[in-house]
């Protein structure tokens, strides 16, 4: 059966003879336009797009000399259309070729200009394929007037109409932690997790807080908790975060031993795929001399290697 690959010829054999051959009209082949196409290209050079009306009233853009429906000559009525239009269908060129109108990925599109009864074939510089859809509104980007020559490429390309814009927002604040969190951070500075026990509910909350979220009682009793606990649930994050050691990273709910509510922490020293519910973990602290009033004192929580806990 024929193959689609040639046999390799021997280097010195006549089988390897190949000549380069170019077919070209240097400077381009001169074509007359006739009055209909000539009118379109003349208007294009002026930065306008016109169509021609058929006897049936359809506006052909670009103009043709004859009505494609009937073969009759078109009327002499030229109509300015667009310049905006609507993409009817499109194809995306991921790798432009040397003859293409743009040197970056772009779409070919059939564009129905406002007021036209047919579609114009041209390129759309949409940046990304995700921007393309039937119904997309586009406008021509003309070449600078001095460069226009009465040629279909006087329109360099079409570009999507503006439908979104970036709205910059930035305001600055100074935020204090409040008494509960300040007290908890003092504990973290000293290498312990501080919780609070509600005498009424008999529940231990961590981080430390001064009121019970269940019954609203004032919490008076401060409890020191160990830095070990159990993972109850977790998420694998694939977007970088300045607080995380690497991507992907795992954020987890850990119930510290002796606490009744979980605390959200980072997990480390473990591949994301090995993290599981019930895993036993311990906080990894920075050296005492580097500790401040900050959660940064805890690098992350790492597996202790103890057997998993049934939740």
């Amino acid at each position: 059966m024929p193959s689609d690959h040639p046999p390799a010829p021997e280097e010195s054999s006549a089988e390897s003879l190949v000549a380069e051959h170019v077919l070209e009209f240097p400077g381009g082949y001169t074509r007359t336009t006739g009055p209909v196409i000539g009118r379109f290209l003349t208007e294009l050079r002026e930065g306008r797009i016109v169509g021609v009306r058929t006897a049936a009233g359809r506006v052909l853009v670009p103009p043709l000399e004859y009505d494609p429906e009937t073969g009759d000559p078109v009327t002499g009525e030229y109509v300015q259309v667009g310049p905006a239009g609507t993409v009817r269908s499109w194809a995306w060129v991921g790798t432009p070729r040397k003859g293409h109108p743009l040197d970056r990925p772009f779409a070919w599109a059939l564009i129905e200009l406002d007021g036209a009864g047919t579609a114009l074939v041209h390129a759309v510089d949409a940046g990304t394929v995700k921007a393309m859809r039937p119904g997309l509104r586009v406008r021509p980007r003309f070449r600078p007037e001095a460069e226009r020559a009465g040629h279909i490429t006087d329109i360099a390309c079409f570009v999507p109409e503006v439908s979104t814009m970036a709205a910059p927002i930035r305001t600055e604040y100074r935020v204090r932690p409040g008494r509960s969190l300040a007290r908890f951070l003092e504990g973290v500075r000293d290498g312990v997790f501080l919780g609070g026990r509600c005498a009424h509910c008999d529940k231990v909350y961590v981080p430390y807080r001064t009121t019970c979220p269940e019954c609203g009682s004032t919490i008076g009793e401060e409890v020191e908790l160990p830095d070990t606990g159990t993972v109850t649930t977790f998420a694998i994050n694939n977007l970088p975060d300045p607080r995380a050691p690497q991507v992907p990273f795992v954020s987890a709910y850990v119930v510290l031993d002796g606490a009744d509510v979980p605390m959200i922490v980072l997990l480390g020293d473990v591949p994301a795929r090995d993290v599981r519910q019930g895993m036993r973990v311990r906080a990894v602290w920075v050296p005492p001399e580097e500790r401040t009033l900050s959660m940064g004192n805890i690098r992350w929580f790492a597996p202790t290697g103890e057997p998993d806990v049934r939740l």
Partner: protein
Amino acid sequence: MREVAVVAFAQTRHTGYDEGLTEPELISPILQEVRRATGLTRFGFTCSGSCDYLAGAPFSFVSALDAVGAWPPISESHVEMDAAWALYEAWVRLQHGDVDSALVYGYGKSSQGDLREIMTLQLDPYYLAPLGLDQVSYAALQASALGAPESELTGIVRRSRADGRANPYALDLPDPADEPAGQEHAVHPLRPIDVAPPTDGAAAIVLAAGDLARDLAERPAWITGIAHRAEPHYLGVRDLARSPSAAGAARAAGVGKGPVDIAELHAQFSHEEVILRQALGLSSGTVVNPSGGPLAANPVMATGLIRVGEAARRVMDGTARRAVAHATSGPCLQQNLVTVLEA
């Protein structure tokens, strides 16, 4: 109408690369083959189809006559189109009644240039060609307008390639599932597998009229209908998801007057088969492109003629009683020729 039949068909073992043959060297063996098959050495009329832009040389088709044997002078013509249209011209010539046989051939070596860009040269020189709109790009616009499910198109490619692997003249192309993963779209939505492979090759057919056809073939493939229709050239004035010209040609050729056992369709992109099946009104009982079709071998300018030859071959060998051959020319199925062949 004078009865005219296909009585012989030959094609090269097509290749996906340049075998280093000139055009006369490429076609000579298949011309010898149809001469042997019919016993004819001279024909009442000779007509060929080719494209000078494939070789990049004006009148390159004239040199191909070296393989025909044109002295003493023969009655000869050429179309700068797929040779299916040369067959149409030969069929018309046989209707004159003064000659009884015609030799038709077509050939193309896509390997010598870049077919995607060569095909840009057939576009209107004012509005389309200056944009550099290449063959795969305008086909992708049509595929996008159609919006056929990717699974349906993959199925067409899979079937075509499997049939092509079983066809000794077509290329050996892998099942789509065995293609390397992660290939970029040729031009979205077309994938590389949706595009016919660049191919070098040639084909020849002998037509004969009336009793000569009965003398030359045990079971001639009679042309009971043949017609072609064209649509406007400019893509923006057409509904690219449909092919009214193919439908019109099929109606004029009488495709719907009886059951169609097999149809050979000149679909160079998988989505074109979907459009053509609908335009020709083919039922699910019709076997499409049992040769593998253009997706398994696309020797441009012979591809359409091969559709006629493959359809005729199956009528001549008795595997089909009624067959349809389709050929196309121009961007996005602009012009379509439909032939009905019957036992």
